[in-house]
């Protein structure tokens, strides 16, 4: 059973929290999302750090958004698919600045195979599946994160499931 977030991502912020709190709360989840979509533990770390760096630079603006959490997930989703990025000097500086980082642990072969199949999907389908299953986001939140309609999300989910069934069945039969 997947872990579904108890509180929706999309919520109206009643106050502007500081970046440090936001960063520490979201780091694990966002890095995990980047891993699912990039397939690279170190690359996921880089992607997450890059996204948080962008958030940090523009925190005055982003902290006023209804959902900074959705914003950082959108950035990671858009940059993750098919991309494994090396850490930039600026991202390294962010790690030093914030004093913490996070790496994705080793996972079992069946889990790795499942995420590898997800990454073979078209980018939108992969993003939708990762947000739905890894991040536990409902369709409405996914639509908000990816800036598309809920019906589009449902379409991508359905197509992704069809393709994934074939991919994973083929992988099991090898």
């Amino acid at each position, binding site marked *: 059973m*997947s872990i579904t977030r108890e509180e929706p991502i999309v919520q109206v912020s009643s106050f502007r929290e500081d970046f440090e709190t936001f960063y520490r709360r979201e780091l694990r989840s966002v890095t995990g999302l980047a891993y699912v979509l990039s397939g690279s533990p170190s690359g996921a770390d880089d992607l997450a750090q890059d996204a948080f760096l962008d958030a940090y630079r523009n925190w005055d603006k982003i902290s006023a958004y209804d959902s900074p959490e959705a914003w950082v997930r959108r950035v990671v989703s858009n940059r993750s698919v098919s991309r494994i990025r090396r850490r930039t000097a600026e991202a390294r500086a962010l790690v030093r600045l914030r004093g913490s980082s996070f790496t994705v642990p080793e996972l079992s072969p069946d889990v790795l195979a499942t995420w590898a199949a997800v990454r073979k999907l*078209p980018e939108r389908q992969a993003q939708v599946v990762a947000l739905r299953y890894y991040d536990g986001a409902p369709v409405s939140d996914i*639509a908000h994160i990816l800036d598309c309609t809920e019906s*589009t999300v449902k379409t991508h989910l359905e197509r992704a499931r069809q393709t994934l069934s074939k991919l994973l069945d083929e992988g099991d039969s090898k």
Partner: protein
Amino acid sequence: MNKLEDRLNHAADRTQTAISHQEVRSSSHVRVRHQRRRTGLGVVAVIGVTLTFVVTGALINSEAGSDAASDVAASDVQVADGLAPLSDLPMIGTSLPGWEIGATSEEDSADGGGLRTALYYTVVNDDTVFAKLWIRGITEGSVYETDDRLLLDEAGVEELTVRGHDARMKVDGDDYDIVWRDSPTVLIHLAVNTAATTGSGRAIALAFADSLVDLTPEIWADYRRATEGVGLADNTPTTTFGN
């Protein structure tokens, strides 16, 4: 379908559980991990050697031409170590030893209005997505036009010619995005990630584009078949894809 749901939920559960037990490292740990990663990059360089072989033929041929628009046919591009010719890459259903090729279509609609469709080809080697090629139709004037035409207006975009086709390339670290298009509502985009390669990432990305660009009419035909009936009939290119 329940089997799939179970598998995805299982993967999510295991991943989240593993991550929840993972230590958030201090900056001193980060430095140690950086040193280890350099060693890891040496391992993936083995893959890079293979990919260097992959494009060697294209590089030699393209550099022999008078300019970037070389006379080398895509079918001339051969690869080493048992991999199939690059010219086969965009063909749906083609079995390529050493490569896994995925081809599928997708549609997107936005709250702000507009529709876009795409036919995707993904080139995967050793579970790493090395390249993605997509042909995409977009509703003119929609929010997607802004997204997809980003390369046309963005700073740092290099204008170049690939086999006589006007193209634009944007480089972001190891990521090379090359776009060529002949219509305001059609986009052909090649994204190549050269992080796991050795040698010139630029040369590798351009060689890949060079091997694919002449197959545009074929993938356009595939795109029309894959997205038939979704309401983007006006996306027919206004000019031909040839020279």
